[in-house]
């Protein structure tokens, strides 16, 4: 059954979704004066000055660099820890395995604010405050369980006969794991990395609490709405637009695998 106006609802929906993003993008090309002056759908005086500030002022571009550094560290840690853990959950039966697996998820049930204070104290005490690794480790709290959960789903989709065949063909376990198993579940690793990236990239509270200057994330920089030169709304809009960009790029690469992850019910 084809309806002549079946495109209507999706189009409206997409327009509705795109509206705030368009607003942000439009704003980023306006001067602060124009933004404060009143609403206009298109920039009256088109300017790239906001972007120029971000790419030249270290307090702005360092925010991006800091965010990217801890996100990458976090992704690497999460995936490399979760790979063996997920393998164990998917291949072996051990005492309390199911409880432990479920318990992993419960880590995601507490709001990050719960952990902010103890983390702040802990990281200050061991001298990790205001470092990238501190934020990366803090984000592992959410990301490792998630990654284990996602990878376990993908791994359980691979029959254990693959492992056994590799042994029969003369591979030891470590060689099998690295040379055959990891390439086989590459899609799953891609999806897991994407989710690590996404959670770590958008998480603000812990990242802000655990940093002050040297590792300050971009999201924290953006919460600074006014500076010595007054309101800088155009600049904020430009920063916001740039913040969306990495997510869009990453999701482009894993778009096909995400659907697979959803099909497994693990994402």
């Amino acid at each position, binding site marked *: 059954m084809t309806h002549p106006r079946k495109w209507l609802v999706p189009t409206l929906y997409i327009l509705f979704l795109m509206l705030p993003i368009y607003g942000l993008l439009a704003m980023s090309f306006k001067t602060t004066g124009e933004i404060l002056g009143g609403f206009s759908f298109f920039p009256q005086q088109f300017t790239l000055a906001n972007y120029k500030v971000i790419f030249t002022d270290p307090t702005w571009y360092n925010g991006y660099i800091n965010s990217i550094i801890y996100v990458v560290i976090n992704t690497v840690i999460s995936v490399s820890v979760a790979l063996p853990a997920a393998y164990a959950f998917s291949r072996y039966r051990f005492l309390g395995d199911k409880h432990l697996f479920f318990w992993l998820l419960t880590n995601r049930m507490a709001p990050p604010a719960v952990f902010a204070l103890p983390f702040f104290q802990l990281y200050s005490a061991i001298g990790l405050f205001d470092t990238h690794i501190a934020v990366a480790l803090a984000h592992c709290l959410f990301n490792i369980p998630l990654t284990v959960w996602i990878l376990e789903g993908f791994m359980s989709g691979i029959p254990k006969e693959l492992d056994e065949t590799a*042994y*029969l063909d003369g591979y030891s376990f470590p060689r099998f794991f690295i040379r055959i198993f990891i390439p086989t579940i590459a899609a799953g690793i891609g999806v897991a990395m994407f989710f690590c990236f996404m959670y770590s990239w958008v998480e603000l509270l812990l990242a802000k609490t655990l940093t002050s200057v040297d590792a300050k994330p971009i999201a924290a920089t953006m919460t600074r709405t006014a500076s010595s030169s007054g309101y800088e709304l155009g600049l904020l809009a430009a920063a916001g637009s740039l913040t969306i960009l990495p997510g869009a790029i990453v999701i482009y690469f894993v778009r096909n695998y995400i659907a697979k992850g959803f099909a497994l019910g693990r994402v």
Partner: protein
Amino acid sequence: MARIRFKNVQHAYPPPKGQKPVYALKEVNQIWEDGGAYALLGPSGCGKTTLLNTISGLLTPSEGEIYFDDQDVTHLPTPDRRIAQVFQFPVVYDTMTVFDNLAFPLRNRGMDETAVKLRVDQIAEMLDLTANLNKRASGLTADGKQKISLGRGLVRSDVNAILFDEPLTVIDPHLKWQLRSKLKELHQQIGVTMIYVTHDQVEALTFADKVVVMFEGTVVQVGTPVELFNRPKHKFVGYFIGSPGMNFLPCKIDRGQPVFHSNLLSTSHPVSNDLSGRIEVGIRPEFVEFADDGIPVVIESIEDLGRYQVVTVKHESEVIKMVVDEDRPIPTESPKIQLNPDMTRIFCDDWLVGGGQNE
């Protein structure tokens, strides 16, 4: 190449909480002669796969030892055992091409590349995979993938044994015949021990020189197809081999001969009178025939299967199946049947007794 010997092998999988372990293998003592073509036959869940996995080392049995010739390999890891195994469902390395899949076990053993190429081409030819050699393995159909799995098992020439775990389940029927005869042919060529697990008796009987019948974790009988047919050692073998399976009729013993519902039967394998336990007479449907004199029966149904017909008859409440040639008339008035005394066996508590035991 080696002779594989099982000594009191037992295996129990870890039981669910609070339950006693269930033995998947019980007291298996078995010798697999070097170069034999064996079929391991039994119903699902009787321990066939467990037994295979203990040979290849994927499982370490909870008790007992396994020897390759005189070497105790019970705790030897799988890669060192030189066993090839093909599983029921296709296993391919998705990230490699078909050629690399087949070459994988050879390369792992440091074979040089020209020899690898030669051998892989030969196997690919045999399995009809030549056209696909450069394709990625993940793009093939299920039976294409299974052929790769088979090929990976057959490609090595240094193996002690090749184990097949119902390898033709996912293959089309017409291809099944072809591949099975290829396997048989290959066995004659290279003379490696092959153990072929199946629950299909036709498959087992056509492939193997010796059939090993398993039931509830034990090996109940080892023999040639003819032996299994004529002299099943256990009731299960009688049921399982042959179509339809063996008839079993409850009886008593009188002077070494069975008495079935006050009809004296005769057997060429008499037993002693003091048997205790549940006693039954076993007779194959092929060896029951209509006669002028014998046990009076009522005909229940006739199935015409082309070259022969299966007739189901009843005496008192016991059902007897018989196989009658298509051109033989079926008596209509007060039919009577006779059992061939040479093929009438006596079973006590499910096991064969009497002279038929150790011929």
